[in-house]
C-alpha cells in the first residue's frame, strides 16, 4: 500500500476530503464576516450566534410549523437576515461613527444574550435535526465512505461562496456597495440610498451565517453553544486571509480546513490550536493577511 508520511494513501485521501468539507464550512462563515467587515467595518462578534440562530430556526420551524429542510434552506436565511437588518438599523447604526471596538462589544454582548436565552429554554445537550431523506446514505469513494450529506454541504457551501463573490465583485449592485463604503457622501450625492445599502449588506452577511447554520443542523447536535466555539476559528481564518478580502476568506477557509484535517491524523492533540499557529505565523510575516492589501 502506498504511504504518505507513514499514513496509508486511502486514509490520507479520506482526511483530505473531510478537511475540504470542513473547510467549505469555514469558508462560508468567514465569508459572511469578511463581507460585513470589508464593506461595513463592523467586527461582527454575533456571527457565531447568528449561525446558531439559523440552525435553531430550522429545528423549531420543523418541529412546530412542519417546514422541511429544503424550504428552511431558503426561508431561514431570509428570516434571520431580516432580524440582522433590525439589529443594524436600531443598534449598530447608532454607534457606526464610533471606534470599531464599540461594534465588537455590542455584537459580542448580543451574542451572549441570544445564547443565554436559548440555554435557559433548551439546555446545552442539543437536539437532533434529521438529515433530509434525499441526502441520507453515503457514497463509496473507493478510499472512504462519504456520507451523502457531507458531499452536499461541500457543494452547497462552495456554490454560495461563488455566488457571493460574483455578486460583490462582478455586478452593478456590488459596485454600488463597494463605492458606498469607500465614499458614502459622494454616493449619496449621486442619489444612492447608502444607509439602506448598509442595512441590506449586514442582513446579507447574517443570512450567510444562517444558511451555514441550516447546513450544519443535520451534522451536529443543534445547541445554543454551537456557534461560540466555531466563531474564534472563523475569526482566525478571516485574519489569515486578510480582513475584508472576499476571495481571501474563501480560499483560506478551504486551506485551513485541510490543514486542520491533516493535523487530526498526525498530531490530534494540536488540532484545535494549529489554525492559531498559522495565524501567528501569518501575522508575523504578512500582517495584512495572505490576501489583504498592505495599508
Amino acid at each position, binding site marked *: 500500500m502506498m504511504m504518505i508520511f507513514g499514513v496509508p494513501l486511502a486514509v490520507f485521501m*479520506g482526511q483530505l476530503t473531510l478537511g475540504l468539507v470542513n473547510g467549505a464550512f469555514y469558508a462560508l462563515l468567514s465569508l459572511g464576516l469578511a463581507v460585513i467587515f470589508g464593506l461595513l467595518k463592523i467586527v461582527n462578534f454575533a456571527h457565531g450566534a447568528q449561525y446558531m440562530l439559523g440552525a435553531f430556526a430550522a429545528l423549531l420551524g420543523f418541529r412546530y410549523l412542519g417546514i422541511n429542510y429544503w424550504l428552511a434552506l431558503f426561508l431561514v436565511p431570509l428570516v434571520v437576515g431580516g432580524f440582522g437588518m433590525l439589529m443594524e438599523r436600531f443598534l449598530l447604526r447608532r454607534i457606526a461613527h464610533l471606534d470599531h471596538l464599540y461594534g465588537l462589544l455590542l455584537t459580542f454582548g448580543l451574542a451572549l444574550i441570544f445564547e443565554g436565552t436559548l440555554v435557559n429554554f433548551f439546555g*446545552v445537550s442539543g*437536539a*437532533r435535526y434529521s438529515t433530509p431523506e434525499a441526502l441520507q446514505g453515503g457514497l463509496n469513494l473507493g478510499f472512504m465512505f462519504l*456520507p451523502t450529506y457531507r458531499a452536499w454541504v461541500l457543494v452547497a457551501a462552495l456554490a454560495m461562496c461563488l455566488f457571493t463573490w460574483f455578486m460583490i465583485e462582478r455586478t452593478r449592485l456590488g459596485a454600488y456597495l463597494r463605492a458606498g463604503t469607500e465614499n458614502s457622501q459622494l454616493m449619496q450625492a449621486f442619489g444612492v440610498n447608502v444607509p439602506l445599502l448598509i442595512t441590506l449588506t449586514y442582513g446579507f452577511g447574517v443570512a450567510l451565517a444562517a444558511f451555514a447554520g441550516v447546513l450544519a443542523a443535520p451534522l451536529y447536535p443543534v445547541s445554543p453553544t454551537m456557534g461560540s466555539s466555531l466563531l474564534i476559528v472563523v475569526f482566525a481564518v478571516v485574519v489569515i486571509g486578510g480582513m475584508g478580502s472576499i476571495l481571501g476568506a474563501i480560499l483560506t477557509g478551504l486551506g485551513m480546513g485541510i490543514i486542520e484535517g491533516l493535523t*487530526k491524523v498526525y498530531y490530534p492533540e494540536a*488540532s484545535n490550536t494549529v489554525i492559531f499557529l498559522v495565524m501567528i505565523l501569518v501575522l508575523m510575516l504578512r500582517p495584512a493577511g495572505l490576501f489583504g492589501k498592505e495599508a
Partner: protein
Amino acid sequence: MTFMKKTLTASIAVAAASSMAISTAHAEISDNEVRIGYLADMSGTYRDLAGPGGQTAMEMAVADFGGSVNGSPIVIFSADDRNSADVGANTVREWIDQRNVDMVGGLVASSVSIAVTKVLEENNGLGIVSGSAASSITNEHCTPNHIHWVYDTYPLANGTAKAVVEQGGDSWFLLTADYAFGHALEADVTNVVEANGGEVVGGIRHPFPTSDFSSYILQAQGSGAKIVGLANAGADTVNAITTASQFGLTQSGQQLAGLLIFLNDVHALGLESTQGLLLTTGWYWDMDEQSREWSERYFEEVGRMPTMVQAGIYSSTMHYLKAIEAAGTDDPEVVRAQMADMPIEDFFARNGSIREDGRMIHDMYLAQVKTPEESTGEWDLYEILSTIPADEAYRPLSESQCKLVQN
C-alpha cells in the same frame, strides 16, 4: 427621661442576654449558619448533567431537611466555574476567606474538582464531589477534606468495558478527551480490557471540547478494532455518536461503547441512534419506587428527569446535614468523620459507605439503552441489566495510592 433610659438599658440587656443565649446554644455551628457553596458548570458543555438542576436538587434537600440544622439556618451560594480550574479554585478561595463557606458541593469537571480540593485541603474546608468522573480524585489526588459521591471512572470501566469484552468485543480503539478525566478513564479501561483478555489496538486523544469528530471516526474505522470506546463525556460523546452513525460505523461491523453516558445525552441523541448501547450508571430515576417518587418531585420543579449526578447532589447534601445534626457542629473534620460513621441508604445509594480515601462506595448498575419500541415515554430510556455490588464496583483499597490509606 429616666423612664426612657431605663427602658433603653433594659432592652439592651435583654438583647445582649438573648444574643448570648443564641451563641451558647449554637456555639458549635460557625457564624450560626450552615453555608454551602454550589459550584458547577452552569452554562457550558456539562450544564445539563448537573448545572442549575443540581442546584435545585440541593435546594430540595435543604428544604426537606427543614431549612435549618439544630436551629441554625442553611444558606446556599452558587457560582459558575465555566469548566475552568482557575475560576473554580479562586471562587472557592473567596467563599472560604470572605463568606466562611462550610461545604462546597456540585463539582463537575474533574480538572476543576482536583484544583478545588487542593484549596479545601490548604484551608481545612470540606468538599463533596458529585459530578466528576476521574478516579484519581480519591486516588493520587485524595485529601482528608473531600468525599467523592456518585461514580468514577473505575466502575465505568469495570462495568461497561468488562461486559463488552465478555460479549466478544476484545479489540478496542479509544477516543479520549485530552484532559485529566479522559486520561483516567483511558487508563482504567485499558486495564480492564487487558485484564479480561482483550487488547487496545489504538487510540486518539482529541482536544476538549471537539465539535467535528468525522476525522477521528474515520481513523477508528481504519483501525479494524471491533469496539470503538468513547472515553469522553457530555457534548463530545453526543457529537462522536452522531458522527459515527453518519459514517455507518456500526453497519461496517464495529460497535460503539460509550463509557460515560448521562441520561441527558441519551435523551438528546434519541433512541434511534443509541439503542442497545451498554452503559454503567450510579443510579437511574426509574429503577424503583423510591427513586421514581423523588424523581417525580424533581420533575415538577425542573421539567426534566434527573441525572445520577443531580440525584447524588440531593443525597450527599442530605447526608451532610444529617451528620452536622448528629455531631452538633459544622467543623469540617468532625463532620467528615461523622459522615463516614453513618451508612448511606436512601433513594439514591444502596449499601453506601464512605471509605478512608474519601470514596463513597455504593451499588452501581449495568444498563442498556432501550429500543424505540420498548420505550413507553420520553424519559423511559434505560433497562437495568445487573447490579455491581458496592464492594466490587470501585478500586479496592489494596491498590490505592491515596496518602490516607495505609498500604
